[in-house]
């Protein structure tokens, strides 16, 4: 939660800096931000690779465990496609890419801002922060209405870190494992799917 606030502050700080013309515009889509993005993706992989839980998780993977991130991926893209029908101003690739954020708002908004445009990047940030906050606040209701797996599904990529505590509290301790595996797989899928979506459309 603390990190979400700091990240949002930087974004809002950027908006103010742009609004009051503190710095020249035209940064996104240039070589500079492209290289920072490459560095960012390398670091995302690096941090995942050094995660002491990674080896243990890869060894314990079963088909039944992969079904959870599969449901999140298919369902999020499906939901985003419906969103595209309801929101005519949003293109299908942008809508799908925003859905492929799976709650990983920092990386998805940056990638979409860079690969598509600032408006889609801003919606990606709002949509994916909203997804994380909804999971954090509504976890008990999600469990009550849709079953114990619901907060893991709703958390998406965040179920490996930020939303893990509420998942364990309201779904149960036995959901630690599915939540970690689903979160790690979706965290890797986010950059791959977003770049794939913009490559094929």
């Amino acid at each position, binding site marked *: 939660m603390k990190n979400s606030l700091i*990240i949002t502050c*930087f*974004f809002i*700080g*950027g*908006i*103010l*800096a*742009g*609004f009051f013309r503190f710095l020249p515009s*035209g*940064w*996104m889509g240039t070589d500079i931000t492209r290289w*920072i993005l490459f560095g*960012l*993706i*390398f*670091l995302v*992989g*690096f*941090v*995942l*690779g*050094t995660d002491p839980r990674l080896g243990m998780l890869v060894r314990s993977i079963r088909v039944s465990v992969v*079904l959870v991130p*599969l*449901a*999140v991926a*298919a*369902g*999020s893209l*499906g*939901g*985003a496609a*419906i*969103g595209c029908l309801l929101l005519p101003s949003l293109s299908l690739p942008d809508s799908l890419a925003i*859905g492929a954020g799976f709650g990983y708002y*920092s990386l998805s*908004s*940056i990638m979409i*801002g860079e690969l598509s445009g*600032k408006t889609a*990047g801003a*919606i*990606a*940030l*709002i*949509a994916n922060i*909203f997804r994380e906050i909804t999971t954090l606040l509504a976890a008990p209701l*999600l469990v009550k209405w*849709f079953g114990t*797996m619901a907060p893991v*599904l*709703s958390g*998406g990529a965040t179920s490996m870190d930020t939303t893990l505590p509420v998942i364990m509290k309201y779904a149960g301790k036995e959901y630690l494992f599915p939540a970690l595996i689903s979160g790690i797989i979706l965290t*890797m899928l986010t*950059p*791959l799917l977003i*770049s*794939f979506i913009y490559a094929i459309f």
Partner: protein
Amino acid sequence: MWWIALILVAGIITGRLLRSRNRLRPGAEKLLLLFIYALLFFLGSEIGSDPAFTGQIKALGFQGALLALLTIAGSIVAWKIIHLFFHEK
């Protein structure tokens, strides 16, 4: 697409090879946050410098919230469908 996949895999392999050097991880996490702050600041400044921006705030918020709820609902529905098939087997 392939560049991003390659960079991600290169990062995972490098991290895996260097995982015994515990001190690298906190440093990498800090650098990662720094990159995120910088890029989101640039993204924000790009949006803020657009004269049409102030009129768009409400619409962007609404679209974001709707997409968040639809992706959550979609994930739960997809899980229920998969569950249905798995239990009927």
